[in-house]
């Protein structure tokens, strides 16, 4: 009788564990509700929305140009890519073509962002799994890139450097020299990171065979970017729907085989090398010329969708009246424009009613889609692997919650 009662008390039950939103390894304010059987995850439910700032709604109240600084705040560690993606989208809507030089500058900037974002990913991912040294070393290289951003546009993180129809200001000679020196140095640094973790048995045990997702499942989940390419699907917006200067440069799209955490890590490391290659080519091929298209709208574009105010000799006239030039440049309609950001495919779906402000704007942000794949990835793994899985899908909650 007593034995029975003791056994009744000892009966195992599922445990619900609330992970986050203040957990340091969830890369922001992601909340996961885990149902555990012992240490095995049976079910994982991600909750998002703790960092919701209403960027989509805010951009409805601003003209296309004023909405640009908001895009920095989507994915705050790769702000330049978001801006470029937004500018490409609006340029496609307006039918503006950026000048060659601006295109090359934007490509360089996007790839610099890709490197700095992947470096941060590597740093935090390795730190989560337990390798601390990589974290310290990778911030050294990131500092170099961020200094270069500051040299060009005066801000280190929230850059708002691209502009609809080009970029805001030209890059200097020293910028290009310093960046070229970086590209010479950087492959050695990648080798350093690889020396630290590539063959490390702890790293291999924590990453190999964890979070396997087949190519078919990955496509069905809507994964993009390195997370998808780790499963062996060669899909890259830069190759399939080229924008900016990507058609003029030569690069490869690295793909993995098994679709586990380790393959995705290999993919990203290879992408660092390819980005380095793209930057080198862009610097070598950089053409001269203007950096802003002639028909680009001015910064103070009126909200009615007219192109610009005429800069007049009499200052007061130029400032007060909205000028006689009534050239509408925003066509009505809706369209979707994808770009490849470090995390995956960032798409802008814009519904335009012909005015200078979007009627509705929606972002297809990779982090949000990737977070939705977490339940499938986590199922059947240990609690400790959940940390590795959050790292491998590379989410930034600013972009996820928008």
């Amino acid at each position, binding site marked *: 009788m007593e034995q029975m009662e003791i056994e009744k008390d000892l009966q195992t039950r599922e445990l619900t564990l609330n992970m986050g939103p203040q957990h340091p390894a969830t890369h922001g304010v992601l909340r996961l509700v885990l149902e555990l059987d012992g240490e095995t995850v049976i079910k994982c439910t991600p909750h998002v929305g703790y960092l919701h700032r209403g960027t989509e709604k805010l951009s409805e109240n601003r003209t296309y*140009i004023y909405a640009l600084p908001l895009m920095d705040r989507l994915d705050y560690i790769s702000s330049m890519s978001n801006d470029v993606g937004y500018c490409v989208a609006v340029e496609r809507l307006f039918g503006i073509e950026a000048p060659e030089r601006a295109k090359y500058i934007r490509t360089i900037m996007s790839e610099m962002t890709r490197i700095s974002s992947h470096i941060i990913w590597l740093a935090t991912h390795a730190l989560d799994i337990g390798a601390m040294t990589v974290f310290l070393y990778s911030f050294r290289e990131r500092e170099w890139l961020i200094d270069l951003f500051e040299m060009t546009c*005066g801000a280190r993180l929230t850059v708002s450097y691209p502009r609809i129809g080009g970029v805001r200001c030209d890059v200097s000679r020293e910028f290009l020299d310093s960046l070229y020196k970086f590209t010479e140095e950087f492959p050695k640094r990648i080798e350093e990171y690889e020396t630290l973790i590539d063959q490390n048995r702890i790293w291999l045990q924590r990453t190999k065979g964890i979070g396997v997702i087949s190519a078919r499942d990955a496509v069905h989940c809507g994964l993009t970017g390195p997370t998808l390419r780790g499963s062996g699907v060669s899909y890259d917006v830069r190759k399939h729907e080229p924008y900016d200067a990507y058609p003029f440069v030569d690069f490869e799209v690295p793909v993995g085989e098994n679709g586990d955490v380790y393959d995705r890590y290999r993919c990203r490391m290879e992408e660092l090398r390819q980005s380095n290659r793209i930057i080198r080519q862009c610097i070598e091929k950089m053409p001269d010329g203007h950096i802003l298209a002639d028909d680009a709208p001015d910064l103070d574009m009126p909200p009615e969708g007219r192109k610009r105010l005429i800069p007049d000799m009499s200052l007061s006239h130029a400032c007060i009246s909205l000028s006689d030039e009534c050239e509408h440049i925003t066509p009505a309609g809706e369209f979707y424009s994808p770009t490849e950001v470090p995390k995956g495919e960032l798409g802008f779906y814009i519904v335009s009613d012909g005015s200078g402000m979007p009627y509705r704007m929606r972002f297809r942000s990779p982090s949000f889609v990737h977070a939705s794949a977490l339940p499938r990835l986590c199922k059947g793994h240990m609690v400790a692997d959940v940390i590795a899985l959050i790292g491998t899908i590379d989410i930034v909650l600013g972009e996820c919650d928008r």
Partner: protein
Amino acid sequence: MTLRDIAKKIFFLEIMKGLALTFRTMINHPVTRRYPKVKRDPFPGFRGRHAFVRDSETGREKCVACLKCSIVCPSRCIRIEYKETEGERILERYEIEALRCVFCGYCAEVCPVCALVLTEVYEYADYSREHFLFDRERLLKNWDDFSSGLKTDTYFNKFWRPEGIDIKRMPVGKRLQEPIPIKHEEKVL
């Protein structure tokens, strides 16, 4: 499994390689900076604290109350009041809420007379929120603080006339803008 693999496994070769790298880095020169003691100079054109350029002729700000900056501000943190006399606008109140500002630098870029500037000052944390409401006097004081720390004789902000953009797109005031002379007060001993 070859002999090499076994040796790798027993002697922790890959971990030893990693440790060799860490020990090598230990004797290298550190890349970090002891911040409050060693300060970092921002690059020219850094978008920091706002200031009104003090006109050397009038000793006041150059703002003409065209409202462009308040229109273009994405976070709507600039408030301007003016009165109009004989077709001329006279600035009465100008306020920037620095806590709402996103430091995009659009206001400095759009200003037709180069009156507003985002200076390279980045250390201005304070305990009270009132100190971040920059009014006219405060903005001019910011300029004085900034210009006294400058080492050069002239100052020209990069976003007043961005390089590479066709000059025809800009209003006359910006086209003719020349670098602003900085008066350095001589130290009285």
